[in-house]
């Protein structure tokens, strides 16, 4: 299991835009470098990327939830 953490405080989004599907759903294969969500910080959107490969186990926080730096956003399984 690997946690994907927020690089910055802000607001976490599961989707590239409100009309689109989430970046990942449970069971998806994740490659290192894949974008799994966005953190909006000071009106700028920062992509959150997986550092390792694995299987997506789900988001740890709700879509559009406020997050702190270092908070776990999603988990990956082997």
């Amino acid at each position, binding site marked *: 299991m690997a946690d994907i953490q927020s690089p*910055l*405080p*802000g*607001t976490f989004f599961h989707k590239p835009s409100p009309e689109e599907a989430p970046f990942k759903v449970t069971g998806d294969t994740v490659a290192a470098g894949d974008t799994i969500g966005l953190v*909006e*910080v*000071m*009106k700028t959107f*920062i992509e959150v990327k997986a550092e390792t490969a694995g299987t997506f186990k789900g988001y740890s926080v709700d879509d559009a939830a*406020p997050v702190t730096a270092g908070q776990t956003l999603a988990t990956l399984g082997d």
Partner: protein
Amino acid sequence: MPISRLFIANRGEIAVRIVRAARELGITTIQAYSEGDTEMLAVKQADESICIGPAPSKDSYLNIKAVMAAIKQTNADAVHPGYGFLSESPEFARAVEAAGVTFIGPSAATIERMGDKVEARKAAEAAGVPVVPGSKGRVENVDDAARVAKSVGYPVMIKAAAGGGGRGIRVAENEEQLRKLAPQAQNEAASAFGDGGLYLERAVRSPRHIEVQIIGDGTNAVHCYERECSLQRRRQKVWEEAGAVCLDAQTRETLCASAVALAKAVNYRGAGTLEYLYDEASNEFFFIEMNTRIQVEHPVSEMITGVDLVQEMIKVCGGAPLSMTQEDITRNGHAIEVRINAEDPLMQFMPWPGKLGKMSFPEGEGIRIDHFLYEGYQVPPFYDSLLGKVIVHADTRAAAIAKLKTTLRAITLEGLKTTIPLHLALADDVSVQEGAFHTQWLEPWLEAGKLQSAATTGGAS
């Protein structure tokens, strides 16, 4: 009726600025704040404060219902909207008016009219203010285009009348080019939009952004001279000056008089800014839009004129006549403002909402720092990155740049990354020192790596 309880529907440094102005006028201040802003400086400084909702702006500072409920609950008799958020919302101004509360700004009808680009252009033309010359309507053929271009003046931009988003825009330097390019534009417009109609407009290339500060009481209006705001990144102003040294005295006079004419024509009340493009080569200026609120860069105008714009807008919107005539307002020296943002300019301006450790700002003649920081403050990530503004004033522009450098170098903001290194590098740049720049100057400068090279050679210590 004089204002006694002022509700501040904004946050950050402008909220602090409004608290100060209101206090000096003996007015009780009521600061609105979101759940993400409970620790902000204006909440600590204001006489009273009230929470208006969750951290996201749409649930708090942009939520008209929530703001109106808080205004009523606190028995405020006036509202200052600051800049951004609801400051130019006719719907909000109308709700404030309907509640019998004074809005520190123009009427909802004026906000609506001047916020509409077509209506604002019409109002400007009616008041004799120059706008970017263009064809009155569609141009259907090449001979028409050549005739219109002659009256508009070269270079001209050829656009598809039905187009948008910059597609198919061509620039012709003279009639020969126009006769070659117009048919191409027509064909392209016809295939892309099913409509071969064209629109012609003077191409103002590498323009400067020059704006005029005005203030009116609903009947009379005056100007507080112009500001030069051409140094921009992603359409955000980075560095602003008063005055614009590129203007000769006659052009400055004509420009500022045109702004007053428009303000009077729309019976403007409050502080406002008319934005212009200035074509240095032809010494022509063209109105582009009006901002019906106080602006971030208002302090440079205050520094050269001695007028307190925030106090004055509160007074006139409370029903007082303007406290000054145009003859009372004189220019003195030169002022520069730079925006201190919580961003790392050496890392693609990555936002940096850190926690502030040790803080110190220099003080002295001609130095003003408007900010909302204190030691131990955690900058919230939910809003824009503006932390404050460093404003300097000196007898000449060169002396103001020198003072800016010594001031910036003396600032300590531990724990944060800020845009101070950018401003130090700009202050050391020859083009900036010569005032030789325009709205398309800063981004190529950054892309060319000028900031990085300045940082490594010690230019931006």
